[in-house]
């Protein structure tokens, strides 16, 4: 296969061309060196043979160099020497032309020996140093061939022709050598081409042909088809066989082996035999090739069928158009698009099937793909002619090229991407949605962040107030707690742990532990309160005694409120626990003191009551029991005075009078004392007391004594009505008037004034006299029992009258006072509550 590949490769042939160039140049150089060294061997290979002329050797060198350079050029090997190729070629052609002109004109142009001088007797040479005419012709054609090159088909053919002329001319000279005919027929006009000259021409001519492996005979030789094979097989034979047969015939003739006629028969027979063998051989080769071709064709057909199946099966639309827009092929899906069979489509254009607008569009996109020289992809909506459904397709239009790079048309593939498009649309929508959501989430996140920020700020503030709260709780010994009803979870603030003496690391006590922190009574009490709070949702407050784990006891106040949910169900209890031990202790102390005090007050009261009772019974007994002996003294003294008056002398009667007077006074004292002790006893009912009747009765009572004393009583009307006891008020007035009578000034007519007026919601009863008056120092003393300011002899009196007034006033919840100027008079005022209805004295 490598050989085959080499055979087929143009590079192989180009290499051959370069090799031929080198060989030609080498032959030329050898000959030149022979001339330089004057070596017959190098010049003519054999002393009897014609030597290669110096010009010829130079021509070969130049032609070989040109061919070598052209071979390199064909292989795209850059070289500055390429520019000398036309010069070399032209020199070679010119060398041939000038030498031919010498022959034709019969003149020596002086070119034959400008390099080296040749002896005039050189064999088979017309002129010394001048090449044979055939050589000159070969150089001319070879130079022309090298000059023409083979860029175009025509120049290639011209080159091939010129190369063939060269080869045939050289071959003719060669055959003359082979058949040794020159001597006989003088072919070459007395001049003969050297043998290695023939070889060099053949090699160079072949090299020139090989320069263009894509064209002419080389291209034919390179192909793998039958023609190529036949050419490769027959070409050597076609050249060598006649040469061989001709040589055999000539040899037979010359050696007299057979007659000339028989020689012809032999030649014909040999040809028939050789040609038949060739035909059989070629036929076999061709048959094999044909079989191969048939097999290959079948394989191709199979492959094509598969391709067609593939095309048909492809759900995509596939089509081929030429550069003019005419359809070359299409698949079945495409048939559905046009609603026509492929056979009807091929050769027609889009304008035959769709409206001009769409056809224009298709055409322009085809041309765009061609212009871009690469596949063009675009999306378009197509309506299928067979069932009318529309689909979005993705069309790929790729320009097609042949092996020479020429645009053949456009391959189109359209894929239905409706579903994908919809999916993509959905994805895009979903992406848009998720982008939107992300954006929203982002905004939410920002909002959340700001909320968190706020929250953090609030938390800071909260922490601050929390620490303040904790501090406050610690100082106030108040803790707060929460009990979640649903979870049963208990939450305590730090202070509660301190109050209960519980390690905060343990967390808040659960409900089972709680009873251990209280005395049984307190727990029962508290539990009842909690139950109630929980059931009825009412706030409670309850004191309880705490028993700490270390056994110490504290008193606390538990306060609680319920928390509700929307359905008014109690969800939690929240509250406080306050350590009130100090207060409790103080309270207990106070209670103890109170109890003691009460006890003492009770005892004292009882004592007082007893003393009072004793005093009463004492004063009663005293006054009662005193009266009996007094009565005896008084009674018997009187009896003595009545019945035994005459038997007593003056002195005895005087003493008896003294006894009577003293006992009478004693009786008055006792009566007054009794009176005093009776006053206000058993309580009084306070009623409105009209004063006018009392005062009237008073005036009547005292009229005799007042008259006797030369005094008078003045009533200032109207008299306001006080609330009090009529008897007590009568007693008060009687005693005060009596007092005025007693303590009157002897040199002044007594005037007693009684008034009763409302003052500040009270009734002030005033008794004013113009008597001796009382010094301020005694104003308090005069209201006490037995307090007398004067001797009995000066002013008679028991010293009980004002005490009774005082007692009576106090009994009526009033006040008594005195204003006095000694030597001018006194005013006693009694202030009692005013009656709601006041009646003026009628």
């Amino acid at each position, binding site marked *: 296969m490598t050989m085959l590949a080499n055979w087929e490769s143009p590079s192989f042939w180009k290499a051959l061309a370069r090799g031929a160039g080198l060989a030609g140049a080498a032959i030329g150089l050898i000959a030149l060196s022979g001339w330089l060294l004057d070596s017959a061997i190098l010049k003519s290979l054999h002393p009897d043979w014609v030597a290669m002329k110096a010009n010829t050797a130079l021509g070969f060198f130049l032609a070989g160099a040109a061919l070598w350079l052209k071979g390199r050029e064909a292989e795209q090997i850059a070289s500055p020497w390429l520019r000398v190729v036309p010069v070399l070629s032209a020199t070679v052609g010119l060398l041939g032309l000038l030498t031919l002109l010498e022959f034709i004109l019969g003149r020596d142009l002086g070119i034959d020996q400008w390099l080296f001088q040749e002896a005039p007797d050189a064999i088979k040479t017309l002129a010394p140093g001048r090449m044979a005419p055939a050589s000159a012709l070969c150089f001319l054609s070879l130079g022309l061939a090298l000059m023409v090159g083979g860029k175009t088909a025509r120049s290639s053919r011209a080159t091939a022709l010129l190369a063939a002329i060269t080869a045939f001319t050289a071959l003719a000279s060669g055959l003359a050598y082979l058949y040794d005919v020159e001597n006989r027929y003088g072919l070459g006009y007395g001049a003969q081409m050297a043998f290695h000259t023939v070889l060099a021409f053949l090699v160079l001519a072949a090299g020139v042909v090989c320069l263009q492996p894509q064209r002419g005979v080389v291209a034919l030789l390179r192909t793998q088809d039958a023609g190529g094979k036949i050419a490769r097989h027959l070409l050597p034979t076609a050249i060598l066989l006649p040469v061989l047969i001709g040589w055999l015939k000539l040899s037979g003739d010359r050696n007299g082996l057979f007659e000339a006629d028989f020689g012809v028969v032999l030649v014909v027979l040999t040809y028939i035999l050789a040609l038949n063998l060739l035909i059989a051989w070629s036929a076999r080769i061709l048959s094999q090739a044909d079989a191969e071709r048939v097999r290959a064709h079948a394989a191709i057909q199979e492959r094509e069928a598969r391709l067609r199946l593939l095309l048909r099966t492809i759900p995509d639309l596939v089509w081929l158009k030429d550069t003019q827009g005419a359809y070359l092929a299409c698949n079945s899906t495409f048939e559905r698009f046009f609603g026509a069979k492929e056979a009807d489509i091929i050769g027609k254009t889009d304008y035959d099937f769709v409206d001009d607008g769409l056809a224009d569009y298709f055409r322009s996109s085809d041309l765009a793909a061609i212009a871009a020289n690469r596949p063009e992809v675009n999306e378009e909506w197509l309506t299928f002619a067979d069932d009318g459904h529309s689909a979005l397709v993705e069309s790929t239009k790729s320009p097609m090229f042949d092996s020479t790079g020429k645009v053949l048309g456009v391959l189109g593939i359209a894929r239905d991407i409706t579903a994908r498009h919809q999916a993509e649309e959905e994805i895009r929508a979903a992406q848009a949605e998720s982008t939107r959501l992300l954006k929203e989430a982002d905004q939410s996140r920002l909002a959340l962040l700001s909320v968190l920020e706020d929250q953090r700020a609030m938390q800071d503030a909260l922490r601050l107030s929390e620490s303040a709260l904790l501090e406050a709780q610690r100082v106030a010994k108040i803790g707060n707690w929460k009990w979640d009803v649903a979870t049963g979870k208990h939450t305590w603030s730090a202070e509660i742990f301190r109050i209960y003496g519980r390690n905060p690391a343990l967390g808040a006590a659960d409900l089972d532990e709680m009873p251990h922190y209280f005395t049984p009574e307190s727990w029962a009490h508290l539990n009842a309160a909690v139950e109630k709070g929980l059931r009825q949702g009412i706030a409670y407050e309850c004191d309880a005694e705490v028993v700490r784990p270390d056994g110490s006891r504290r008193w606390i106040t538990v306060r609680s409120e319920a928390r509700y949910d929307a359905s008014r169900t109690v969800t939690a209890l929240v509250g406080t626990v306050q350590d009130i031990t100090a207060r409790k202790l103080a309270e207990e102390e106070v209670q103890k003191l109170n109890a003691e005090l009460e006890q003492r007050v009770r005892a004292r009261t009882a004592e007082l009551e007893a003393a009072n009772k004793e005093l009463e019974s004492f004063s*009663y007994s005293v006054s*009662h*029991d005193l*009266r*009996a*002996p*007094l*009565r*005896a003294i*008084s*009674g*018997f*003294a*009187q*009896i003595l005075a*009545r019945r035994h008056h005459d038997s007593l002398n003056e002195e005895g009667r005087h003493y008896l009078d003294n006894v009577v007077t003293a*006992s*009478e006074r004693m*009786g008055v004292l006792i009566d007054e004392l*009794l009176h005093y002790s*009776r006053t206000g006893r*058993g309580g009084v009912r306070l009623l409105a007391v009209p004063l006018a009747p009392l005062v009237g009765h008073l005036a009547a009572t005292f009229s005799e004594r007042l008259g006797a004393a030369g005094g008078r009583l003045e009533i200032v009307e109207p008299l306001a009505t006080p609330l009090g006891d009529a008897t007590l008020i009568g007693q008060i007035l009687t005693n005060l008037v009596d007092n005025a009578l007693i303590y009157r000034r002897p040199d002044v007519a007594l005037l007693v004034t009684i008034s009763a007026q409302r003052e500040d919601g009270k009734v002030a009863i005033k008794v004013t006299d113009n008597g001796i008056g009382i010094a301020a120092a005694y104003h308090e003393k005069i209201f006490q029992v037995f307090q007398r300011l004067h001797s009995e002899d000066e002013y008679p009196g028991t010293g009980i009258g004002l005490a009774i007034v005082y007692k009576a006033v106090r009994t009526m919840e009033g006040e008594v006072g005195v204003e006095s100027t000694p030597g001018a008079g006194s005013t006693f005022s009694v202030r009692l509550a005013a009656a709601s209805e006041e009646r003026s004295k009628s």
Partner: protein
Amino acid sequence: MNQPACILLVDDNRMDVELALDAFREAHLSNRIEVAGGGRQALDYLFGAGAYADRSAHPLPDLILLDLKMPGIDGFEVLRQAKTAQLIRRIPVIILTSSHEEGDRAMSYDIGANSYLVKPVSFEGFLAVIRKIEDYWLTLNIAPPLSLGNTGEESHHE
């Protein structure tokens, strides 16, 4: 009134008794005056017990002058028993006492005293009281029957 009325004077104070008797004499009253020197003797007399068993010698009095303050059985007790006994309850009882006390007065009337007098300090006063008692209780007032034949018992009221 064929027979002078009998007065039972109950007083533990000998001097008061003497003054009273003197006053009666001064007033020239002919009444028989029986003196009981205490609550015990007064009850014995009224119920004919002990030394007073002989009713003919110690007839039921027509009027009782009763002191309240007495050692042992006091005037109230005597009054209470007298006022709860047949016949005896009919006898008018005049409380003659030194006491002005409201409580004493109330108690006395509650138990059934018919009158309440306070002993005057002076002899003249005493004498006047005795004369007025004589005038009212022994002359003007119609004495209740003091024999069991009379059936006024049932109609009495508390």
